[in-house]
């Protein structure tokens, strides 16, 4: 009975994950976890239960589960593409959860017919000891630090130290392969996380030369819209000037801080002989044009 319940866990997890993915808002950790489960783990796990209902695959389970999940998701995507509603969130959640439930059910049906390898019976006390040992192995460093601290302050520390040593012995003798793998991967993961966080921050604040953007586009009522945006590192004064054959359409000064933008509209004189308008931006008191646009009149477009 317990085995049956355990086997149905993926189906329940799939249903719960689908519900979470459909209920929670973007950015919610629960939704992220649900999405990861539904896309990377549950379909492949359920498929493996169908293919190898009675086999303990050990570490082979990892690439097979993840790889099969990705394969199933790709193929389900092709199927969803055939429907008008397409690859929407609800469709994904329902399809993947339903498929996982279906595969789990087939696995449960197939299980009794396959050869079952008996697992050794363990007492409750041994199980608790195993979990404690596993915990000690996964988080050895905080325990180490805590132990050192307590050891230095006297008898309490000595007592805790003995507990730690006994846990360490227990861990070395009984830790399972999965937890050993986790214990070995955790430090690199933490350090990689630190490196990535620092790198992301550094990339976001990478020193780059400042620049300013001047753009123009046609708008309604035969107007030409101009936009000046500063991406310089400090507030800068600009002078925006537009003219047609010396006839000034606009001549204004602005002071823009980094990221600030100003928009304005000019009406081009269609009746004039000239074909183009020149829009020039000067930076600070520099007499040389800093940005320059040349607009062919709409009549000539």
């Amino acid at each position, binding site marked *: 009975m317990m085995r049956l319940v355990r086997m149905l866990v993926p189906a329940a997890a799939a249903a719960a994950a689908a519900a979470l993915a459909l209920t929670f808002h973007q950015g919610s950790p629960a939704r992220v976890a649900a999405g990861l489960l539904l896309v990377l783990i549950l379909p492949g796990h359920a*498929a493996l239960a169908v293919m190898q209902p009675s086999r303990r695959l050990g570490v*082979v389970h990892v690439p*097979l589960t993840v790889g099969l999940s990705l394969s199933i998701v790709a193929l389900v995507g092709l199927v969803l593409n055939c429907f008008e509603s397409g*690859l929407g969130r609800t469709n994904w959640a329902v399809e993947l959860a339903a498929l996982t439930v279906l595969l789990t059910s087939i696995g449960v049906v197939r299980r009794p017919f396959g050869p079952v390898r008996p697992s050794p019976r363990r007492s409750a006390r041994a199980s608790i000891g195993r979990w404690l040992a596993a915990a000690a192995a996964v988080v050895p460093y905080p325990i180490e630090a805590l132990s050192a601290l307590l050891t230095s302050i006297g008898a309490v520390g000595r007592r805790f130290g003995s507990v730690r040593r006994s846990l360490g012995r227990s861990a070395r003798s009984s830790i399972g392969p999965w937890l050993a793998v986790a214990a070995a991967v955790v430090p*690199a993961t933490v*350090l990689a996380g630190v*490196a990535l966080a620092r790198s992301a921050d550094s990339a976001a604040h990478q020193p780059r030369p400042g620049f300013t953007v001047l*753009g123009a586009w046609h708008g309604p009522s035969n107007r030409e819209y101009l936009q000046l945006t500063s991406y310089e590192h400090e507030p800068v004064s600009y002078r925006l000037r537009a003219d047609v054959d010396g006839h000034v359409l606009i001549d204004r000064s602005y002071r823009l801080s980094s990221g600030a933008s100003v928009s304005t509209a000019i009406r081009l004189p269609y009746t004039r002989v000239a074909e183009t308008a020149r829009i020039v931006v000067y930076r600070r008191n520099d007499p040389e044009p800093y940005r320059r646009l040349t607009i062919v009149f709409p009549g000539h477009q």
Partner: protein
Amino acid sequence: MGTAKSHLSEARPGLSPTGSCLSHVPPGILSGSALSIVVGIGLLVVGVADNAARHGRASAEPLFWLGLVTIFAPIAAQLLRREARRQDRIVAVVLLGMALYAVKLLLSPNGFTFGDELIRLRTMNDIARSLHLFHPNPINDISARYPGSEIMTEALAKLSGLSSFHAGIVIVGAARLVAVLAVFLIVERVADSARAGGIAVLIYAANPNFLFEGAQFSYESVGLPLALLAILAVAGPRDDAGESSRLPLAAALATAAAVVTHHVASYALAVFLVAWALTGGLIRRRRGEVRQPGSVALALVALFLAAAWLAGVAPATVQYLTSSPTHGVVQLFDWAIGRGHARTLFGSRAGGYSSPPAERAAAIAAVVLLLLALPLGLRAVWRRERHNAAAVVLTLVALLYPVSLALRLTPAGQEAANRASEYVFLALGFVIALWVLTARARASRSAAWIWRFAGVATLTLIFCGGADVGWSHTARLPGSYLPGAGPRSYDPQGVLAARWLLEKFGPGHSIAADGTQAIIMGSLGDQRPMGVGGGGTEVWPLYFSEAFGRVQYDLLRRDRIEFLVVDRRLGHGYPADGRYISTGEPDERLLPSELAKFDRIPGLSCIYDSGDIKIYRVSRSLMRSPAGGRRS
């Protein structure tokens, strides 16, 4: 490969014990956690190198290599150890694959900055917008015909609420995990040695594409791991009890997904499975053994699926895939008879970018070492595994390595050789691992540490040489803008220009731009860049001329180009990747005066100026006028 315990799983004298999880744990300096900490420190060093490069410090380059060696060398030492348990080897293999994946993430931690990634992003954006597949991708239409990786990413993004970028790196990370474990388990199964599996992963990680190209959000980064998974399922992975049996349904699922995801991976898989089935049949017939049911069927399924997808969904793939190797072979022949020129190795063009001498030496040394090890490995295969069909086929694939090196000598063949490396190195890893097993078996115990040190040094050199060959010196680290230098060319100015054009003029306009801006405009700007893969003729004549005459006007009219994008920084130097705009362009430098000419062309409105990037709008009158080139 048989079911249950095959003949391969029997222990052999001279080979290291495969070791189960229950085997004795010898005391060693590099336990799992210690190794993990050292690898983490290596990543921190690479992160420091990246940060230094962003600030333009000269220390970045040596720090980067120091970080890579800190990651690779301890893992190599662990995997070469004869006494290491299988579980320790698996941990080391996972650490290697994921740590080197993190090196790529450290280069671009905040978004997609590789050209291929932006191409894929366009397909993903199209899927997210329309909820359907197979929208034409104007930057590279073939990629839209193989949407497997985009489907997975889209599913994860939709369900988890993660951004496309974060969902993409999770999917590629998961695929990387599958790939390294699959390589380990395949070679472990074929060579009957966990140590061989570990060594094969080390060689596989030394392939030029492993560090950056194979870690980017691209269809091959996902398709190849799926193909490897299919091979693993056919081989019959070994479980904790040391038993193995095939998983035909898993193989079929992974094959189908690989077919949907990547062309070359699916074809390579189909060919490999067919060759495996045929070789297995021949060997069994000669030895009078019973035929293995199902192997031929799986091979035929793979062949049928790949052919059906090619014919039904992506027929243009044939031309897309054959042009580069065909031209490569022609150029190689021309060069051999003295009619053509070889490609400039370790550099772009005469007077342009070139690798530092130390990196050239490492790259050449890596190639020489692999070429020396290959015949030794072949001898080991002949002696020990010539009756093993999978081993024979892997050996045949490994023999393609010298061929791929020859193709690298030609401009057109280089891309084909680069693509082939990930496939060839899997087989090369197996062959060399088998030689290492036999060579080390003869070494005395006293000399073991010398052998191990030499082995670690050699493998590290091969790895560093491979990393140097695979990714341009200028694109390996972040920094200020450089033309044609991968992630360094995708800077905020280009991104802002693409977003501005989309915001003010809407999507779907045909534009002419250089290679980098075309991808940014097509991906983030949702426009139709011409002449880069999606359609239209090549646009380089617009740029490679100081005059703007009939040829240029005709080109504008023929492709109905509405906007011209000009990045004036292209005039500052040669592109690191060897081309400014597209492959057909002249082999000469683009001059600033050629880029400045557009300001003088009547009928072109300059509507955007950010200092370096200018956007010109082509007037409708210019498009109508048959004598457009009136002033030139």
